[in-house]
């Protein structure tokens, strides 16, 4: 028979493993969603760069495709793990975030396209960082990197080159972050 110290160590080992599995499952579903959103954001930025007057329909399409893809990934992971990653509450939360963002950017602020490019990225990265405080610190690291590179572009990348800069920083950044999470 073991003593209470050994029993405590065994329970701590169990708890550590439960946390590892939980983090692994968060990374698994989050990595797929980040790769999806990274590809869409990359395409959205490049399309906006090529057709600047079509910005609103382009980004509406990005959001609709992103949400549909997020639901599809969540449903496929639910079949495998028994856990749903993107549910109705998250959908409503996403809509509220978008609504508040539009209110800030277009009603209160009247942001220019360049300001919007920086604002939306930093705004979404704020939620990544906040989620990371509860789920996994990798989200915080990814959010901080993308936010810093967005600000570098906003202040130092002149003219139209800012949009492809954002395609790389935000789109490729999310894809890279997703691939990094998948390997972790």
């Amino acid at each position, binding site marked *: 028979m073991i003593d209470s110290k050994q029993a405590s160590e*065994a*329970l701590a080992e169990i708890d550590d493993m*439960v946390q590892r*599995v939980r983090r*692994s499952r968060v990374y698994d579903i989050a990595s797929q969603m980040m790769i999806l959103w990274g590809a869409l954001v990359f395409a959205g930025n490049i399309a906006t760069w090529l057709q600047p007057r079509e910005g609103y329909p382009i980004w509406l399409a990005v959001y609709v495709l992103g949400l549909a893809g997020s639901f599809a990934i969540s449903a496929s992971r639910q079949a*495998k793990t028994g856990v749903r990653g993107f549910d109705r509450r998250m959908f409503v939360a996403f809509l509220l975030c978008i609504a508040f963002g539009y209110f800030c950017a277009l009603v209160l602020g009247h942001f220019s396209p360049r300001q919007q490019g920086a604002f939306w990225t930093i705004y979404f990265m704020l939620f990544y960082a906040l989620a990371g405080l509860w789920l996994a610190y990798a989200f915080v690291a990814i959010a901080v990197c993308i936010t810093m590179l967005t600000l570098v572009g906003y202040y130092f990348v002149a003219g139209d080159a800012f949009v492809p800069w954002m395609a790389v920083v935000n789109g490729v950044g999310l894809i890279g972050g997703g691939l990094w999470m998948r390997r972790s």
Partner: protein
Amino acid sequence: MAELDDIIHQPLRLKIMAALNSLPATAAGLEFSRLKKLTGATDGNLGAHIETLAKAGYVSVEKAFVGKKPQTTVTATAAGRGAFARHVATLQEIIAGRQG
């Protein structure tokens, strides 16, 4: 007085059972490669301990091909979940001073 389960109590098997039991009963289990990463065990060591758990009826092992790659999935059985729950309860009793 409850007894510790010797099959589960071995350190690596404890990790395997903890990982599998943290999944919902309806989940498909964990792939061998994922378990290897989570536990930090070598292929041979992990395989041997999974076999011990499978012989005890605590886990089921399913081998399939995903595309052209073979994939081994390990799932906790109902008996395994019950044994693990009893093992954890015994550990908690020991800490509470009712045993040991």
